[in-house]
């Protein structure tokens, strides 16, 4: 019995060691490799899943939540969109802003995702030092019979690996594109006005 326990304990220990060894290896996946892997996974799903192709929003959101979300740093994205107004928000407000901004971006993305079928993603060579902690991963989305679209990801290395903090489509940063709107809301009614505007937008209200 004791021997049995010892074996189990050893097996557990080995397992834990393997996990510990694997976790950092996974976290150290290079940013361009990460983008390529995740994009391909998502493209595979889009190609194979009839629900996604039919435009089933619930299913699309599920794909985004399970495959994409964990690779984005929404707090940093929100800070970037806010610019210097970020410092004016309390930690509580910052959290609410990040939550609402996350919902808005997920909604935007889920609408765009359907249009990505029949597309392939090519990575452009990345020029970055091995020690860099902030890089831009450049990709090109190739669509049959149409001009390719450049999609770049601003990525930073944190405690739990690389995460994207900006998505730049054809030169338009989806994050800093909100800077003027956020400024305007805050100028008119403070940080709470912005939170309310984002919340109203996420509840399905149309934009102005």
């Amino acid at each position, binding site marked *: 019995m004791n021997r049995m326990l010892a074996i189990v304990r050893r097996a557990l220990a080995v397992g834990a060691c393997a996990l510990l060894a694997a976790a950092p290896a996974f976290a150290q996946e290079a940013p361009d490799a990460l983008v390529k892997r995740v994009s391909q996974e998502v493209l595979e799903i889009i190609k194979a899943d009839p629900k996604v192709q039919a435009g089933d929003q619930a299913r699309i959101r599920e794909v985004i939540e399970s495959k994409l979300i964990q690779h984005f740093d929404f707090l940093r994205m929100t800070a970037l969109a806010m*610019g*210097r107004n970020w410092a004016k928000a309390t930690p509580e407000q910052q959290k609410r802003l990040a939550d609402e901004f996350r919902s808005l971006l997920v909604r935007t993305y889920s609408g765009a995702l359907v249009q990505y079928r029949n597309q392939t993603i090519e990575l452009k060579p990345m020029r970055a030092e091995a020690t860099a902690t902030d890089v831009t991963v450049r990709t090109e989305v190739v669509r049959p019979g149409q*001009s*390719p679209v450049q999609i770049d990801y601003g990525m930073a290395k944190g405690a739990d690996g690389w995460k994207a903090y900006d998505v730049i489509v054809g*030169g*338009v940063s*989806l994050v800093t*594109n909100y*800077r003027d*709107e956020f400024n305007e809301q805050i100028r008119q009614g403070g940080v709470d006005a912005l939170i309310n505007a984002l919340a109203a937008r996420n509840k399905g209200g149309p934009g102005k």
Partner: protein
Amino acid sequence: MTALDRQVRTAAALALATALAGCATMEGGSAPSKSDPLEPWNRAMYAIHEPLDTNIVRPIAQAWVDYVPRPVQSAVHTFFGNIEDGFSALNGLMQGKWEKAGNDLGRITVNVFGLGLIDIATDAGIPKGDEDFGQTFGFWGVPQGPYLFVPLIGPTTVRDGTGLVIRYYLGPVTYVVNDVPLRNVLYFLGGLDLRAQALEASSMVDRAAIDRYTFIRRAYLQRREYLVHDGNPPKKEDDE
């Protein structure tokens, strides 16, 4: 001077005065964007544009995309695309971008074999240069100038708008096609194709924007900056 002429002039003068008054009042209460000193005027223009686009232009473009056979759509797109490739080559040359100009000229040559209606060049992977007069001005250091929103044309700036006016005067449909009804059909199709190309962007704005006017402005300015620098705009901490 006809009565109508007078009316138009009065309206224009009034509009200008309103715009100037708008600028003056803005000094006090609000913080206008540096890139959009004419914001009250532009917002008024946007208010004219929006219902026209939403209720008339956009649905027509959407119907074109949804119901007209793909080969017809792509033939129209390729036909006008060849003309733009020519102007892109010219603008590429004016900026010393030989490779881009070469690609554009190559595209036109190859597409001759598709009778100008089948885009063989894109299928063969020859990239479009997508250069225009606004970008040429930008390349030679001309700043964007104030942002402008023009009903039915959309977002532009003083610099890019000047480029559009030059482009408009160079035709060539105006000079080549003497048959007025045919010319009008071509104008219509050209406009339709342009609007159809922007439908994806429009639905993006639908989903993403809180304030459409502001969202479109920022996206336009970012996009143009990117194009002027051929995809490598200088990084800046733009914290207005």
